[in-house]
């Protein structure tokens, strides 16, 4: 647990009350602990508004799915969380996004720190044209780890966590481009894990993959949520229903409904959500 989280815990529980470690662990697992708190987020590409007044909390160690039709702002929202959206120069935002109670737009929190703690897996597998090993070791090296023995450990652990170690342990020096699409995507997940983030943002990670690779990635997500908080954008509603704990439905840049996945799919509050999940549009 980071110092910040500890601070937050102690301030929540009051300075006089001692919390047992077991209880504290319980509380960390509790549904109320959130990694992201987004309030009144508006976002513009130039003069086009893409997001309207989004307020949403993202719970720790759970899988949060974001669904919605194409162009509804779900990817934009995801990329706002680690400020990747700023790769587009004309982007402007208002509102607040707090990551572990820190405002991500305040100068004290550099964008490099944020992206170290909030990793990302992209829609299209995007390995570097380097070996599998160098791909996974990229992040640790960027953060200054040079010793081969430590890098070896990180690479092995990350590939194991991404459930691809057994397939690739004898092919670490092969160029990542020679792997299949599904393997490339899991190497990209391993690469994201190697930086030891808290949160992993996944932007339609299976949209370029075949069904078997998709299944493997979905199983992996289930496994990863024990250690990480995961936000996954998907246009595949079955996938959201299968793997997520909470689901948010976006439409035309607005957050229409955000609820427990079972509730949202079985008994949505909003008519538009119902229309979308029953396939009446989208």
């Amino acid at each position, binding site marked *: 647990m980071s110092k910040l989280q500890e601070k937050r815990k102690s301030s929540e529980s009051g300075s006089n009350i001692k919390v047992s470690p077991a209880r504290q662990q319980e509380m960390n697992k509790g549904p109320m602990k959130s990694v992201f708190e987004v309030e009144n987020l508006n976002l513009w590409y130039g003069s086009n508004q893409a997001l309207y007044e989004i307020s949403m909390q993202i719970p720790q160690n759970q899988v949060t799915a974001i669904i919605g039709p194409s162009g509804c702002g779900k990817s934009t929202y995801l990329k706002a969380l*680690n400020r*990747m959206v700023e*790769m587009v*120069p004309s982007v402007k935002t208002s509102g607040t996004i707090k990551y572990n109670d820190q405002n991500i737009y305040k100068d004290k929190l550099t964008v*490099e*720190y*944020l*992206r*170290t*703690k909030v*990793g*990302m897996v*992209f829609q*299209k597998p*995007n*390995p*570097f*044209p380097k070996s599998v090993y160098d791909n996974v070791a*990229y*992040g640790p*090296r*960027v*953060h200054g780890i040079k010793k081969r023995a430590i890098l070896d450990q990180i690479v092995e652990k990350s590939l194991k966590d991404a459930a691809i170690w057994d397939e690739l342990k004898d092919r670490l020096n092969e160029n990542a481009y020679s792997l299949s699409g599904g393997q490339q995507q899991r190497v*990209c997940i391993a*690469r*994201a894990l190697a*930086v030891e983030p808290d949160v992993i943002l996944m932007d339609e990670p299976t949209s370029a993959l075949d069904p078997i690779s998709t299944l493997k990635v979905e199983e992996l997500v289930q496994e990863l949520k024990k250690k990480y908080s995961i936000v996954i954008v998907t246009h595949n509603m079955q996938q959201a229903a299968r793997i997520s704990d909470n689901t948010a439905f976006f439409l035309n840049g607005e957050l229409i409904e955000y609820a427990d996945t079972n509730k949202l799919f079985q008994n949505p509050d909003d008519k538009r959500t119902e229309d979308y999940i029953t396939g009446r549009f989208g």
Partner: protein
Amino acid sequence: MFEKNAGNLQKKVNNRVWLNKGMRTLFLGATLVGLIVLALLFYRVLTQGLGYLSLDFITSLPSPSFEDAGIWAGLIGSIWLMVIVAVVSIIIGVATSLYLEEYAPKNKIADIIRINIQNLAGVPSIVYGLLGLTFFVYMFSIGYRLLAGGLTMALLILPIIVVASQEALRSVPNEVKEASYGMGATKWQTIARVTLPAALPGILTGTIIALSRAIGETAPLIIVGAAAAIYTLPDSLLSKYTAMPIQIYNWTARPQDEWQYVAGAGIIVLLAILLIMNSIAVLVRNKFQKRF
């Protein structure tokens, strides 16, 4: 079908097919014009110069008598020039392109700078010669020395290198840069580890082609004072110097017929070096082409 009558349709199709054939011939003709001129050039140069070309010619210093004259001073001078030009223009050019592509804000001012650099690539070389004369020869008091010539030539090809490097940087897919930024890498780390290695083949190709333009340039060197004939090789940045094109120009300007053959031999050496440089550029490009 648009046309019910089969005969009419056939006629219409025939017209299009003939037009296609006509255009093909036209384009082939245009290509041949260039090829024929090139062949004539080669023929003229080879018939004039080949007889005079020998190892002796390459390794001899200039001489008042055409039997002894050689291109060694020009060759060495050109190599010195190219080293200065390459070092100065690659460092400044690549740094400029990195700033413009990766760091500069995308606004009007940056756009104006970009367009102006492209325009600079089209400025006549003699203008750079005058610039070099004003700044390097007089203002910085370098005089008619190797360094002044090298810096002038570096300025001349700087815009070409900047534009080529910008294009190479732009061709690196955004996805891999995003992957790097997504792990908390800074801009510089991303450039050094991902963008620049991926863009390097393109940058090298552009640079070599720019250098091969510089090695054939005559006009700016005449202005910044490359010597018409020197009998010693340059041994420092502040030596007097000459270059191959200057040497050739000087030979062709002499009245006796024999000097034309000497000039022809010089042109062959210059062309051979150009050809080697361009081949290296092609090799570099092919070797790294399939990285993305």
